[in-house]
Every structure is written in C-alpha cells, then in structure tokens.
C-alpha cells in the first residue's frame, strides 16, 4: 500500500504533486498503526506551513499523533469531510482511503526544491519494514 507516484516522509506523510500544488495526507502504514481515526486537526486555508514543523494532529481512539508538514507552502484547501464543525464529518476516511478520500490538505509549494528531500516509494517501503 505504497503508491509509486507519491512521495513520502520518515514520519509517514505522503505528498501528491500537481504542478505547484501539493496534496498531503498520512500513509496506510500510519493509519494502521493508529487504529480507528476519530479526529483530525488541520490548519485553516491561508496558513503558511513550514516543512518539518507540526501542522496539526490526527487522533485515534487511543492516542494523538502530530502531523508534520512534508513541504512548505500556503494552505489552499482542506478536506471538508475532516472538518469537525462540518455536516459531513468522516474521519474514518483516513483509515479506509488514506491516499484518496482521506486527503488532508492542499498547499501551494513555496520551494519545489524541498520535494527532492522526500522519499520515493521504495525508500519509504524500506522504512516501514524497519519499523
């Protein structure tokens, strides 16, 4: 469960690049470790994120885990289905479809050179095997 076209971090976030927009979420490995996801806290549209800094948290029944920004940039969109005050709140999408409907936010890259520091699918696979 490690799509080849995505990029990854050591902390189990993934990045899907579309021009200068990056879509971000947590990996299958991460959601499996966490268990049933019940809450996601992500910053509002317009927030400037810095690579490597916690942008929010993902909560399972049992625990809270930081989500670290894989790259820097301005938040353009957040997944409405993960908004706690939304009518259509479905945090379990992070478990059932972590790379699709469980996407967390989209940002405009401020420095595309940061993409080179991310892991490709094979390198990420090696990390999940060591864990």
């Amino acid at each position, binding site marked *: 469960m490690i799509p080849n076209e995505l990029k990854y971090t050591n902390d189990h976030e993934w990045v899907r690049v579309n021009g200068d927009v990056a879509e971000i979420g947590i990996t299958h490995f991460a959601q499996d470790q966490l*268990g*049933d996801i*019940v809450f996601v806290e992500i910053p509002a549209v317009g927030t400037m994120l810095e690579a490597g800094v916690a942008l929010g948290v993902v*909560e399972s*029944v*049992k625990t809270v885990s930081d989500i670290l920004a894989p790259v820097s940039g301005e938040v353009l969109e957040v997944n409405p289905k993960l908004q*706690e005050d939304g009518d259509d709140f479905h945090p379990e999408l992070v478990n059932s479809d972590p790379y699709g409907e469980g996407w967390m936010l989209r940002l405009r890259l401020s420095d595309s050179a940061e993409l080179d520091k991310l892991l490709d699918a094979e390198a990420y696979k090696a990390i999940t095997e060591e864990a």
Partner: protein
Amino acid sequence: MTATGLLRTPLYEVHKREGGKIVEFAGWEMPVEYSGIKQEHLAVRKDVGLFDLSHMGEIEIVGKEAIYFIDGLVTNDIMRIQQGQCMYTCMCRPNGGIIDDLIVYRFPDLENGNQYFWLVVNASNCAKDFQWVKDHGTPGVTITDLSMKTALLAVQGPNAQNYLQPFTDADLEVLSYYHLTRGDVAGIPAVISRTGYTGEDGFEIYIDWDKAEELWNALRQAEGHILPIGLGARDTLRLEAGYSLYGHEIDEDTLPVNASLGWVSSLNTGDYIGRDALIKEKTEGIKTAIVGLMMQSRAIPRQGYPVEDNEGHVVGKITSGTFSPSLERGIALAMVDTAHRSTGTELKVVVRNRREPAVIQRPPFWRGSVRRG
C-alpha cells in the same frame, strides 16, 4: 521474561496469531487491539467478547482469622464479606494515599477451618501489593503470590452467560453479581466470578497458567465465534462505565474519598491502615473530587489536559479521556475543585491551546447489562 525484560502471558503467541497489536503495558507485552478498538468495544456492548487478563495479580491469604488481617489492610468493611462473595475495595498507606484498588475474593472456608481469600490486584501494582501485605503479615496468616501460576480470561457482554454456560458445569444462572464459584470450564478446573470491568454482564475465569491456551482455544473455536478484545477497548469500555483506573483517577497521592472511592471506604467500622487520614479529610471537607465530563464539541479529552471554568481559571485536570465508541464523542473523568463539581456545570477542557466545551455528567456515560445485585 523476554530479552526486553517484559513479561508475557501464556497467550502471547496466540495473540500474535490472532492479529493482536502488541504493546507494553505495566511491564507486560499485551494486545492493545486485534480487529480495531471500535469494533471490539461494540462487540462487548452488543454481544460478547473474550479478554486475556493474565497479567493481573492474585495474592492468596490463608488463616484461621484471615478476615481480621484483611480487614485491617483494606478500607471496606470486610467483616461483612460472606463465603463465596467478592468485594471491591482499596488499600491505603497511613497518610491515606491509595496503594491499589482491588477485589477481595472470599472462598468457602477450608476443611481444616482455615479461611481462604484472594486479593485480585492490578498488574501495575502486583509486586508492590504483595510486599505490602507480607510486610504487615501476622502469625497465623500465610501469604502467597499466585500471580505467575494463575491465568485469567474474561467473557463480557450481554450474551456472556448464554455463551459460557455450555462450556461449564457451574450454574451461571444462580451465580450472582460479585460472587464466585468453582467449576470446570471446557474441562479445566476454574474459579469463576460474576465480575468485570466493562459495565456489561460477564465472568472472570481463573485457571492454572499452563491451561490458558487450551481454554482460550476452546472458547474461540465454538460456533459463536467470540471476538478477542484488547486493552484499548478494555479502556474505552471501563471509561464509559465510569470505572477508575490506577495511575489515572487513583494513585498514592490521592485519598479514596477524592477518587470517588468513598463508597468502598468505611469510616465507622473496624480500623485499617489510613483510616484516620480518611476521617480527617472527610471532616475537614474534601477539596477535590472526580467528575465525569461529556464533551460538547468533537474534540477529545486526554489525561493531563487542564480543565478551566468559563473565566479561564484552572479548576482541575483530566485523569482519563477518550473517544467513546458508544456515544461517538469525547468523554472523560477529571479531578476538579469541589466548588466546580456539580452535575450540569459547564467547563472547558484545554485541548492543544483551544478551550473546548464540556459538561459535568455523573458517570456512567453508558448503562450496560451489568447486574446490579
């Protein structure tokens, strides 16, 4: 003992085979979940689930007048306990600080006239409890640690009796709440008590350590396919039921009356270690108390988060918090100043710098099938 120094119950390999996610708990390698906490939790609420609790401790106490010895150690009035009865209580230090919460099991007297008891204690406190009891031992009382010889499986849920009865010659219909009996389960000699930590009806089954796998397999392979339940769901179930957990609501810096254990602490019957401290606290007026909190937003309270009043003053902190699978919102137990403990009081839980609304609600948050008498 493993290379890591952590202990394993006889079911460690079974848990792995069953898909259990193993974590460290109280010095043991235990399954936190198998199929998922929510699913396991709801299985116990609606049907029946199977738990491995072999990490818990059992201390055997035997003697002609063992009842007096135990009565001097625990806060409840143990002189009232009948043969075949179980009683929930705690042991305190002279300053009233709680050493552990536990259940006293009184078995039928032995043929030679000796009284026979077990103290069933938390895994995290087993060594401490045993040492404390031994240090206070009196002549005529024999104290033995049975923990590493005794395995414990629990069957819990509204269908627990239906599920378990075909396996045992003990008549579960007449085994009342907080009572024990001896019988065979799947042909294995066992002690069976109608006790549990889930808020549902259920049984705790004590067998020899080396019989645990045989019993687990027998119970799992029957047609009902009872679901294995991990420690994650054990915690969400007990919290919905409003039960305290040592290291959260209860610890050595807490007196029973502050930890909502006043109901198992008798102040006007026999003396016991810590009684004077408890009487003093009650007389002077307790200053803090455990309350239940129901979150009003989707945020989830966790142990240690501060609790504030609506003016921003800290009035307490969360002792246990989680997402309740039955209610689908956050619930918590919190230790708060007694000025703020009334049911219906609106408070704020500080969740990562945000003030999230909560309302005090008397536990239990969920009323399950547990028998009350």
